[in-house]
């Protein structure tokens, strides 16, 4: 469906996000809040899917790239923004500056991805996972010690620029870029790297290069997602981008089915709604209150059940030959 007319899909999705942006003020704030988190999680999960799913490298550092993007973008709008334009500047210019801040966040995150990825992508499987895990910890320690960026307390009072238009326009772009790239003769290189590195190399595929490209592009979109996140929660701290955040994104990719973009999008939606649903269920009557009390426990039990029943991913309907 997407592949037949990718550019039409993109235009339709962009048009839908413009409409969402226009009518945001008439929507229920709780609904907007959940939708925003869904959109940001789609960007994170689909970009991690390029690294962990399509290319088959196991990264546990996605929240680290998100942190880099979030801090960069927030620094641009909070510190540099007021110098560049007066408070009375028309909305169009602040929007443009926000876009620049998001892009800067993405670019700094992508550069970080290149610096981390180039040496560590020689490692495979578990070893790469450990290195990216270490990277996530280092990022968190680094931001905790940069006093101008708030240290351990983080940044407060980030302007509320994120709205449904930005979130869904960027989600649509992320899906488009990654899907269009992977579904091409060029993109078969990612899948070949995933399937069999020795055979891929023998066919002239520079697997190291494909791994680095996947890492850099994945980090770029994670950085942009971080920028959206910061201008949505209005406060960021190093703790918000720790290991558990990375794991949340990895879980979305696994539940959706590694390398299956549609599945990963659905999983990002489902796993964002699940805690909300459990919360709502607990609110129906006092006798159900335990449900909202034990949300983390129920969430974990559901995940275990899911992996036992559908290890290939909840939304993976192809006959899975990837499982060996």
């Amino acid at each position: 469906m997407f592949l037949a007319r990718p550019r039409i899909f993109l235009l339709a999705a962009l048009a839908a996000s413009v409409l969402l942006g226009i009518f945001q003020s008439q929507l229920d704030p709780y609904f907007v809040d959940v939708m925003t988190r869904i959109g940001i999680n789609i960007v994170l999960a689909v970009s991690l899917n390029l690294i962990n799913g399509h290319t088959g490298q196991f990264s546990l550092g996605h929240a680290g790239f998100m942190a880099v993007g979030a801090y960069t973008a927030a620094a641009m709008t909070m510190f540099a923004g007021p110098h560049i334009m007066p408070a009375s500047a028309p909305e169009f210019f602040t929007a443009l500056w926000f876009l620049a801040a998001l892009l800067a966040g993405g670019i700094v995150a992508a550069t970080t991805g290149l610096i981390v990825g180039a040496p560590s992508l020689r490692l495979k499987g578990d070893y790469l996972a450990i290195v990216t895990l270490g990277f996530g910890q280092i990022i968190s320690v680094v931001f905790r010690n940069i006093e101008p960026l708030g240290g351990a307390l983080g940044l407060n009072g980030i302007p509320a620029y994120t709205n449904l238009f930005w979130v869904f326009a960027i989600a649509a772009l992320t899906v488009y870029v990654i899907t269009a790239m992977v579904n091409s003769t060029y993109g078969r290189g990612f899948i070949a790297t995933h399937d069999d590195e020795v055979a891929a190399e023998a066919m002239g595929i520079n697997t190291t290069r494909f791994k680095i490209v996947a890492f850099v592009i994945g980090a770029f979109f994670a950085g942009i997602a971080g920028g959206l996140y910061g201008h949505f929660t209005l406060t960021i701290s190093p703790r918000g981008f720790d290991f558990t955040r990375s794991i949340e994104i990895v879980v979305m990719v696994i539940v959706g089915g590694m390398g299956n973009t549609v599945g990963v999008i659905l999983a990002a939606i489902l796993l964002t709604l699940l805690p909300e649903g459990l919360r709502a269920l607990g609110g129906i009557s006092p006798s159900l209150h335990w449900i909202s009390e034990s949300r983390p426990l129920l969430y974990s039990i559901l995940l275990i059940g899911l992996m036992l029943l559908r290890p290939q991913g909840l939304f993976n309907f192809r006959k899975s030959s990837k499982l060996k």
Partner: protein
Amino acid sequence: MNSLLQLEKVSIRFGGLTAVSELDLQIGTNELVGLIGPNGAGKTTVFNLITGVYQPTAGKISFGEKSMAKLQPHKLARLGIARTFQNIRLFASMSVFDNVRAATQLHRAHGIRDALWRGRNFRDGEKTVGAQIMELLEIFRLEKFRDESAKSLSYGDQRRLEIVRALATKPKLLLLDEPAAGMNASEKTELMRLIQFIKDKFQISVLLVEHDMQVVMGICERITVLDYGVKIAEGKPDEIRANPKVIEAYLGN
């Protein structure tokens, strides 16, 4: 005769084991050479040396005029060396068509930017690549499986698909590692015919490692025999058949 690939006194040691010892081997342009020997003679190791998976401990390998020292496998593929694997290594999650498509990386005219823009360049490029792939698949009668998963093919078809995939890199030298393994007699005859055919059609050299003597003797112009990593004989099929050293290596004395 023009020499395409040249191994001069090539040795490789793994710890205390000398897997290949002072091997000299030449393959000429458009020549079909067989490499045989008992199990563990070092045939696959020679393949891995030629394709850059291993680096020789001593000696020199050159391809055309170029020395191949310290080149990574993907760079050797770019120079024109392609191979199949003894233990089939197809891309398991891809279709038959995509397995071959992945191997056209070196020769596509459209890249990442065209893939993102999805304009005329992209469509034309994909069309050209697609036509080339189908042509190759048709030679090996695999076109009807184009959308099947590569793993769902029969064993013989998987071996043939590996050859198609290697040909898609447009090699000058094709290394076939036991292509007839697991095939029945009629499949073997068909395979011999195909190897001859692609050698002539694409004007390539072929180095064939094979256990099946009927196949090796049937199509090779020249045969090199390895035993315990040492070359014990070299010559035309008839000479090899009559060579007492070869008979001893295979049957013992």
